[in-house]
């Protein structure tokens, strides 16, 4: 039924309309997609490549999109799949080339984050906190990281996250809880146990 409805919807568009519709949809979900890619990779160049590949794949398989679901979630799923494949490839490459080449140093994403507020001291402190928090998230196991980025940083619900990640709701729940506990532990180790009580 869903497939039929999707095909009927799809057939009603001409090629030009289809392209316009796709570009419009991409523009709408661009900020979310960019953030997702940046938080997954922590590298602007890799993030751009990831987005580009995900968009290409989305355009190639546009017929499989079901209009009753949010477009951004569909593209996020594709982006996550592309990211997972790239990680596997990188892991394989690291097996054969274990040393790091010059200039391959990870770019620090957190310089891109603009901290609001006028007080320069406050800005510096918050920048440092964001840097550390970014590192903590980066060091999480990949599956936990995906859930934290989707739920906490991008504000997806558990249900949406389970659809994007492709695992049951209970798994999302437990992964998120474990991830938050790990983050709490790391923050407390870095800034002391009273730090979280004063946050907010």
């Amino acid at each position, binding site marked *: 039924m869903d497939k039929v409805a999707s095909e009927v919807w799809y057939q009603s568009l001409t090629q030009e309309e289809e*392209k316009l519709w*796709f*570009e419009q949809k*991409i523009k709408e979900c*661009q*900020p979310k*997609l*960019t*953030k997702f890619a*940046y938080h997954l990779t922590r590298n*602007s160049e890799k993030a*751009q490549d990831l*987005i*580009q590949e995900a*968009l*290409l794949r989305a*355009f190639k398989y546009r017929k499989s999109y079901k209009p009753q679901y949010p477009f951004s979630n569909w593209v996020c799923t594709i982006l996550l799949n592309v990211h997972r494949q790239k990680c596997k490839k990188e892991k394989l490459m690291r097996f054969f080339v274990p040393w790091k080449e010059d200039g391959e140093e990870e770019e620090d*994403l957190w310089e*891109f*984050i*603009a*901290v*609001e507020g006028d007080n320069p001291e406050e800005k510096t402190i918050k920048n440092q*906190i*964001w840097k550390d*928090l*970014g590192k903590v998230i980066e060091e999480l196991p990949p599956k936990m990281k995906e859930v*934290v980025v989707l*739920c*906490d*940083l*991008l*504000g997806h*619900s*558990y249900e949406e996250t389970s659809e994007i990640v492709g695992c049951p709701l209970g798994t999302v*729940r*437990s992964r*998120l*809880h474990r991830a*938050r*506990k790990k*983050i*709490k532990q790391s*923050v407390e180790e870095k800034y002391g146990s009273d730090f*979280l*009580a004063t*946050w*907010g």
Partner: protein
Amino acid sequence: MIALDCKRVQEKLSSFLDQELTLAEQKELEQHLNICPDCERECEKLQAVRDMLEEFGQAGVSLEESLPLEQIEQKARVDNRIRTVVLSLVVISFLGLLWGVFSYFSHYEPIDPDSFTVVAEITTPFQEQSESGPQATFLPFLELTSGGW
């Protein structure tokens, strides 16, 4: 109703904060938090982590405009072409190598030492010394045994 123990409560705290529990569970947890200061403290800390992550997620990442679809397609086409050329070169080199190895072994004939004729004989000073004693010359000399200048 069985009272919840702290371990079970703490496992559900994240879902409680996200309001992802059933109403009954939510109420149960609330009741427990009212009477258990340890769990309440843990809940407050997790709430702080959640708020911190939320704020971090809202912090702006400098957004670069993505390329329009046509440019993305064009770039992908160029990438594909480069990939095809590189792949073809690899395949051609591999085939060339295979051909080289194959032709070397198929034309290989073992060398028969008797088929050679001695053209020149080189004697080194060391050999000279060992054969004819201490009066040997230190310069190597070339003795033509066949043919001539």
